[in-house]
């Protein structure tokens, strides 16, 4: 249990930060989630812990939103970007340039560039609508399959695919607009 929690705590924290955009609240959410998992599911086999933890974490994030009832404008930012524009027909995924991550330069300038890219990606992820971000994070960061993601999100597998597709295209579009190559 301890090893599992140690392996997921930072990713869980970042997920919570991306969602609630407050580090203090994110820490509380992760702490509550870890506590709940340790208290309630100590008898579960290790293989079931990732899915259980994600369910608890995502529920905790949703509870946070329910409690605070904060409606932030950033949740619709990328959706709004999808309205209008000259190059809307072009698929951003088709034109996004690719850079080999194995050849990451270590110079200070390159490191600065890296941190800027990382910040841009984080901002883009934060700006995704909640459900799109949740689907994208679970599917592609936590590497849950479509069925598991649907269970955690409490929606259909079709919805998961739709959310993931929209999230991916929205991210690609934002990164392309910023001239960022991955």
């Amino acid at each position: 249990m301890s090893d599992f929690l140690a392996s997921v705590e930072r990713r869980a924290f970042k997920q919570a930060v991306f969602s609630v955009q407050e580090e203090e609240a994110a820490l509380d959410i992760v702490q509550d989630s870890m506590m709940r998992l340790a208290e309630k599911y100590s008898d579960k086999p290790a293989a079931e812990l990732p899915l259980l933890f994600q369910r608890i974490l995502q529920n905790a994030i949703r509870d946070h939103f329910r409690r605070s009832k904060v409606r932030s404008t950033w949740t619709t930012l990328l959706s709004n970007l999808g309205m209008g524009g000259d190059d809307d027909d072009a698929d951003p995924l088709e034109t996004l340039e690719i850079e080999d991550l194995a050849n990451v330069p270590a110079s200070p300038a390159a490191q600065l560039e890296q941190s800027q890219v990382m910040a841009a990606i984080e901002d883009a992820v934060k700006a995704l609508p909640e459900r799109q971000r949740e689907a994208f994070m679970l599917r592609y960061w936590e590497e849950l399959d479509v069925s598991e993601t649907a269970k955690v999100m409490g929606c259909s597998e079709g919805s998961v695919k739709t959310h993931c597709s929209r999230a991916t295209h929205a991210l690609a579009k934002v990164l392309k607009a910023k001239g960022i190559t991955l």
Partner: protein
Amino acid sequence: MNEKEFSERIKPWLDRSAAAVGEFQATKLKSARLRAMDAYREPVRLFGLVTVNAGTAQTLHYSVMQRALLFLPIAALLAVLAVKSLEEADLGELDAQLLTQELPPDAFLDQDFRSWLGKPQG
């Protein structure tokens, strides 16, 4: 680049982002984990039953046989109490008959009964 390829490109950046969590946050996370582990108790497995935290038995996913096993000690205790109360009821009835002189005269001719009557009662 398709959706899968794109996500595979993004993932390492997200991993770096998680790895770059500040020292303060990392310490807080570690502390939260240790608190969670304080609340964690290794499950005890006995006859296919598993206890969860502080010995609370979790029965949700158990078979009928496993559930029955859970109640065996309780059933045994209830049986012992029932037998004991029946014995006490018998003695009480005898006392009542003695006091009301309802015992048949033959009872006082029984040697064992008379010796029992002669014993000091606790």
